[in-house]
């Protein structure tokens, strides 16, 4: 028994370590209908930085984010789940979630974007925190509506500081105890907007999405 076990252990230890599990809606039927009232359907697709653009895309995303991808939730081959929401035969928008390190493990932050790339709805699915109720409240999520990546470019996750003026100045931590998770949420929202921009709205030439070619 010992020899095969030892060999298998060596194989495992020597193998590359990149994959991770993605971020899905708990109940897509219910969540899509809630985030896009009047929608008639949705289609699920799995995307990854590795297959769409590889290391170059990852470097570009990190540069736009102003922070490095790190840890278990931000490997290059994390499968991102994109829900393309339809109303009849027309695309009504997109729903996309990301995992983000927070005070107690991981938080899942979903954005519902219209075809104009602006946030229609903001939704924290998984969050283990004493401040979860505050961060999930309508009062906290409402100011995110209408914002886009253009506004979030002013936020620097590495410095963890919001601009004092401009559209993002309305975003506030709901309480002092929610501060750490609030900063995690802001980083997740910016990361999410950048990924959607890369995947759907304006991918770089050669990144491999037909949406990008059309948009440009």
């Amino acid at each position, binding site marked *: 028994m*010992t020899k095969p076990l030892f060999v*298998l252990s060596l194989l*495992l230890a020597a193998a590359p370590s*990149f994959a991770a599990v993605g971020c899905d809606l708990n109940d897509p039927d219910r969540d899509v209908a809630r985030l896009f009232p009047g929608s008639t359907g949705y289609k699920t697709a799995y*995307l990854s930085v590795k297959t769409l653009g590889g290391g170059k895309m990852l470097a570009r995303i990190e540069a736009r984010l102003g922070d490095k991808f790190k840890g278990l939730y931000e490997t290059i081959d994390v499968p991102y789940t994109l829900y393309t929401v339809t109303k009849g035969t027309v*695309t009504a928008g997109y729903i996309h979630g990301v995992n983000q*390190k927070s005070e107690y493990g991981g938080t899942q932050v979903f954005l519902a974007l219209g075809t104009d790339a602006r946030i229609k709805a903001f939704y924290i699915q998984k969050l283990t925190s004493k401040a979860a109720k505050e961060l999930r409240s309508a009062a906290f999520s409402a100011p995110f509506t209408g914002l886009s990546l253009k506004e979030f470019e002013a936020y620097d996750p590495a410095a963890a500081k919001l601009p004092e003026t401009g559209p993002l100045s309305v975003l506030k931590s709901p309480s002092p105890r929610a501060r750490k998770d609030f900063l995690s949420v802001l980083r997740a929202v910016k990361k999410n907007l950048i990924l959607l921009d890369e995947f759907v709205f304006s991918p770089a030439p050669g990144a491999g*999405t037909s*949406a990008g070619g*059309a948009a440009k």
Partner: protein
Amino acid sequence: MYKIPLILLAFAPAAQAESRLLYLEAQAVGGYSSMEKKTVAHSMTADEVMQKPSAGFDLLQKFSGTSGDAATLALQGRLSWDPDAHNRLEPQLYNAYFRARAPFGYLWAGHNRTAAGLESYFDTHGALLQTLPMYGYGLDRDWGAGFSRDTAWGGTALSMTTGSGMRPRGAGGWLLSGRVSRGVLSRDNFSAGAYASAGRVPRTAGYRVMENNRPYTAFGSDLALLLDNWEFRSDLRFGKLRGSDYFSALGRLGLNLLEENRLKLEAQGVYSGLKREEGWILGSGASYALTSDLACRALFEYDAVMRDRRVTTQLYYYLKI
């Protein structure tokens, strides 16, 4: 960059997007059992399916029509190796079901989780610490069909299965299970369920039928609770099994530590209350995520029913391909 022609976006699906997820799974398992008085390559007994040195895959395929997602195919299998087992090399099939959207919820057919207890939604197919079915009360997965409906407050599920567990060929048995739950764990940080099962099921150990069909009932309640970096799970179950009344209970406490919860410490107590086989199984373990694909785990378990003290270690690998 932000002024995108809407008409083009409306018909622009993301190319190179995939409709499937495929993972490679491999694990090395080794330990020592005081009952067997030797090193072993299994975390439970040699006759049970989990956990053993193995390699396998995990596939999730989405099917979409013009109106969007229509169905999902899940296939999850592995080839396990254990020198002490009845079949040294054993192909094992866990998920093997087709799940389709219906106006009232989801319908599934194949090999899937029955609508009872923690095992109805808590996946332990790669873990050392197990839920009640691996201690003889219920089935981790079973062949048959079922339906589920998620609601704003929780969900309902019903399943009609063969009661044969892992074994694809039924033994003439049947098992009807239903569960109602409140709360969604990954949203509400809690899920509480009440369930009932009734049928005629064989006594099985892995893929082997040990005894013919006999009446089986289970009534119970399960609970999962997340609080900051603490996790609590419980499952209380009673009914009739192999002609005797039983009561079984599971309680598990978990503590997540380090960056991104890389380290998890857990302690679990299982009470096995089948008449003439009463006793506790106490376990404590640790799991550490070395990378996003590779975890190492260790478990010490004291089984008063079998009079066994086991130490098990595991390297578990799960890679997207």
